[in-house]
């Protein structure tokens, strides 16, 4: 009767256990004063410490891909560069990437452009935060001030220079900005930052993080304010909060959950404009995201992700009395609400030693409620589906091939294919050549496809003016990018990333003034796919670390745009030459100095006045210190030290010197 004996054994053990508990309690009572010494006796170190399996922490998806193996040109902005740059805004950090321009249209509308083709909304870049696209389905582009993320929580930013639809999905067009926040297990304890400066700069950040081995969390909240350029009503007051939880369910499963929230008034309008006079828009932006990763026996991985983005701008005004209409005040509704639901599944499969396949599928629903500009009180929707696959083949130890394709289908534009092919060849250790051809599409956003802005005189909408009227039937924009790259370690401390590119962009969606009989001036804004552009040039990035305490990062880009310029002046939308130079040095005893210099030739943002040559210098001096158990850092930052210059638009954006002091403490 083995079962019986087993039961008996268990019972005996249980009794024994009880006895030992009783004994222990007795002993504790007797030897209470000695209990501290008792508890200090640690268990013996076991061989299990050496044999035990550990969960895979640094998975391929958590690590930065080595640049020499990436199928595209990648610039990495790491934590040290973010801090040394002196940036107070996430967007500003991107100036460090060759070929990028970052200007402020207003204090809260930051324009990040790459290789030109950008107006104030810059719709041709994809931006992801932890795999979540923050591209707005309403205006297009990214509203950088409304992202519920703190610069302090960002681990690194990878910028893929060139299209990468296969890996990052739709609208990964001219470039992809891939922002990674820190895993919550890498934070413990508290963090506070306070920033005070000119131009009414008042920022604060508070973070708590904790957890044990299986579940860790981080909660960050903050406030940010400034007066924008200071010349207009373009101030902003941002309140944000975000949280992240990482949980491990067994050895094979990870769950990551994030949420975020950003709200507050942003100043808008121009003095003297009867409709768009100085007023505030109220922004509410929030998201939730959950990702589940499951590792299979073979080392393969399945990841499922779902996220929800919500962005809302409340902005209803009554125009000033219009004398021509007998002092009537026209109600203007700028309210816009956009929502995005996105689900994706991705499977990474190792096929033998040399092949790795990443494939997956995604579905997305965009809802945009924008009565003033889409001519509908109900939200308009767009469904979007995609499947993608990329095969990485290590042909020999020196040759790596990547072949991939993305197929997409959208309500608005039907089906499209975006293939990619890239080869990386290691000439000798530390020297790699890369050649690639990559394509992508940019889906039209709702204002382009279905714009319909009417200004009415009464509730039944007697038409006063029609400013937008999209004739629709737009096709997606297409890019075909070919490139030749070299990544080399020229000396032990000097690496070079060199790239020659040729981007052929066709079917550019461009706004133009079309004839519209019912409007005041017989014109309304429409969109069509007429323009095209050929962008050619070269980029280089040099990374030099002469000693442990110093780094120098140089970026240079030469960009030439040729275009038919039918509806817009695309040819002048990028500076011919641009340079970024970041130097940082640890002077010792916790004192750090850094300087960033940027130069760009003259250019003209789409639909704006030309801006001249820009030279910008930012300086930062920081002192680290220890205060009891806390580590602290105090820094003084001077931005745009060279003084006043026209930034985005000749008339409206004169950037001046800004200075601020920022102090932070970490309590572990």
């Amino acid at each position, binding site marked *: 009767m083995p079962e019986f004996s087993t039961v008996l054994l268990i019972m005996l053990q249980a009794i024994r256990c009880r006895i030992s508990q009783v004994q222990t309690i007795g002993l504790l009572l007797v030897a209470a004063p000695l209990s501290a010494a008792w508890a*200090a006796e*640690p*268990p*013996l*170190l*076991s*061989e299990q*410490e*050496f*044999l*035990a*399996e*550990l*969960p*895979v*922490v*640094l998975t*391929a998806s*958590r*690590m*930065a*891909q*080595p640049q*020499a*193996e990436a199928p595209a040109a990648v610039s990495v902005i*790491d*934590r040290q560069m973010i801090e040394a740059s002196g940036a107070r805004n996430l967007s500003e950090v991107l100036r460090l990437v060759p070929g990028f321009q970052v200007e402020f249209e207003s204090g809260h509308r930051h324009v990040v452009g790459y290789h030109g083709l950008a107006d104030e909304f810059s719709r041709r870049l994809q931006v992801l935060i932890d795999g979540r696209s923050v591209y707005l389905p309403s205006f297009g582009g990214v509203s950088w001030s409304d992202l519920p993320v703190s610069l302090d929580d960002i*681990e690194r930013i990878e910028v893929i220079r060139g299209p990468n639809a296969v890996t990052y999905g739709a609208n990964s067009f001219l470039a992809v900005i891939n922002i990674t926040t*820190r*895993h919550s*297990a*890498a*934070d*413990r*304890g508290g963090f506070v930052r306070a920033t005070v400066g000119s131009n009414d700069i008042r920022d604060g950040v508070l973070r708590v993080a*904790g957890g*044990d*081995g*299986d579940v*860790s969390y981080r909660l960050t909240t903050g406030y940010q304010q400034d007066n924008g350029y200071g010349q207009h009503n373009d101030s902003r007051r941002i309140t944000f909060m975000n949280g992240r939880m990482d949980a*491990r369910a067994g050895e094979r499963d990870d769950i990551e959950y994030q949420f975020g929230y950003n709200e507050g008034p942003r100043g808008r309008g121009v003095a003297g404009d009867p409709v768009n006079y100085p007023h505030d828009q109220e922004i509410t932006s929030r998201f939730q995201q959950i990702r589940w990763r499951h590792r299979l026996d073979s080392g393969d991985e399945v990841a499922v992700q779902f996220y929800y983005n919500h962005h809302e701008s409340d902005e209803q005004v009554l125009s000033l009395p219009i004398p021509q209409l007998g002092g009537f005040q026209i109600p203007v509704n700028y309210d816009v609400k956009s929502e995005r639901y996105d689900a994706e599944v991705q499977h990474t499969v190792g096929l033998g030693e040399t092949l790795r396949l990443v494939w997956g599928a995604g579905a997305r629903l965009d809802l945009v409620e924008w009565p003033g500009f889409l001519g509908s009180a109900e939200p308009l929707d767009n469904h979007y589906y995609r499947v993608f696959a990329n095969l990485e083949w290590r042909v020999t130890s020196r040759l790596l091939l990547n072949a991939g394709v993305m197929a997409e289908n959208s309500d608005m534009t039907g089906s499209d294919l975006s293939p990619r092919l890239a080869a990386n060849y290691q000439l000798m*250790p*530390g020297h790699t050549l890369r050649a690639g051809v990559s394509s992508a599409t940019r889906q039209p956003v709702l204002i382009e496809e279905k714009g319909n802005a009417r200004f009415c005189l009464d509730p039944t909408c007697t038409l006063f003016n029609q400013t937008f009227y999209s004739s629709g039937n737009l096709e997606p924009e297409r890019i075909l990018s070919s490139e030749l790259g070299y990544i080399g370690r020229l000396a*032990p401390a000097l690496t070079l990333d060199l790239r020659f590119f040729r981007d052929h962009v066709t079917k550019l969606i461009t706004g133009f003034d079309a004839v519209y009989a019912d409007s005041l001036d017989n014109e309304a804004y429409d969109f069509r796919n007429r323009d095209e552009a050929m962008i050619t040039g070269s980029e280089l990035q040099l990374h030099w670390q002469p000693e*442990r305490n110093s780094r120098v990062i140089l970026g240079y880009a030469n960009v030439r745009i040729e275009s038919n310029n039918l509806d817009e002046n695309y040819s002048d939308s990028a500076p011919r030459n641009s340079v970024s130079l970041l130097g940082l040095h640890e002077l010792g005893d916790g004192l750090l100095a850094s300087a960033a210099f940027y130069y760009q030739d003259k250019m003209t943002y789409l639909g704006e006045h030309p801006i001249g040559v820009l030279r910008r210098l930012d300086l930062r001096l920081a002192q680290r210190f220890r205060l009891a*158990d806390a*580590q602290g850092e105090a820094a003084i930052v001077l931005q745009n030290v060279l003084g006043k210059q026209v930034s985005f638009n000749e008339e409206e954006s004169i950037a001046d010197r800004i200075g601020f002091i920022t102090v932070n403490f*970490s309590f*572990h």
Partner: protein
Amino acid sequence: MTGDALNAVLLIGKKTQNGTWRVRAGLMCVLRRLIALAALAVAFVSWPVAAATEVLVVIAQKSPAYEEALAALRTSLADVSDNEPTLRVMTAAEFSNSGPRATDQKLPGLVVTLGTDAAAMVLRQKLPAPTYCTFLPQAAYAALTNVSNERHARRSALYLDQPLIRQMQLIRLALPIRTRVGVVLGPESRKSEHNLRQAAVSAGLVLRIEQITDEKHLVGALHRVMDGADVLLAVPDPLVFNRNTAQSVLLTTYRLGKPVVGYSRAYVTAGALLSVYSTPAQIGRQIGEELLAMRDRSGRPLPAPGYPRYFSVEINERVARSLGIEPDQVEDLSRRLAEKTTGTSHE
């Protein structure tokens, strides 16, 4: 005490560099050797005269790691066909129920234990038979033998962990420009602080140490120690490096762009840059060789407690590439490491 003394003789003989120290160490050596010899003499007299033909092997439990070690042990014994020792294997639980007792008439010629629990179980019985504790961390053996006061020539150990100098030399070889080594010590590993400092000095490395007494201070300690270090050396301690903390350790150091040198294969899989460790098979092989050596010098005592002769080096290529490190080929590293740390070899 004798075993420790023998060990100390070896250590001091190797490590002293300063002239005056050498003289004093020399004197100490003579003294310790005398003590050791005295202990050996005692052991010789008190040992059962019968040749160690029956060997009792006690393993913690039946699991793949112990089976792997046993298989390698049997293979290395089978290499010599004649008069090989006969092995009797039992688990710690079986030993506790039906194993030999100190009062038994007939005792095995030698008891070999695999693992900390097996060693603790057997040593507790205070058998007069010589006991060879293997496959356990040095710290565990030290703790087990400190609380007991029997004669020492009857027991010895083959550790599972690597000598600190071997780990330091590995860092020196694999990461020549990373000369500042960070270490976070807990209540257990704190005991090896002195040895760590010695090993670092002899490998030409600068050591930075942080100590913690509570797991929740780990991330802070990592930040502090890595502020002035180029590589983190993981030193086994249940409080600092375990299944729960692996995530914090690897993510924090990766974020700082600094590699971790671990002590097990699992650490490399999890995300350490490299590890030097001995597999169960390598330990099994050495146990077999030591048994044969004991048989050949029959009646003579156990070898001095020591670290594994055979070891493996494992590199996480993906982590290396991601951190922009180009270490040598594993084979090359292992070979050079074996040359650096004499008396050892890799497979």
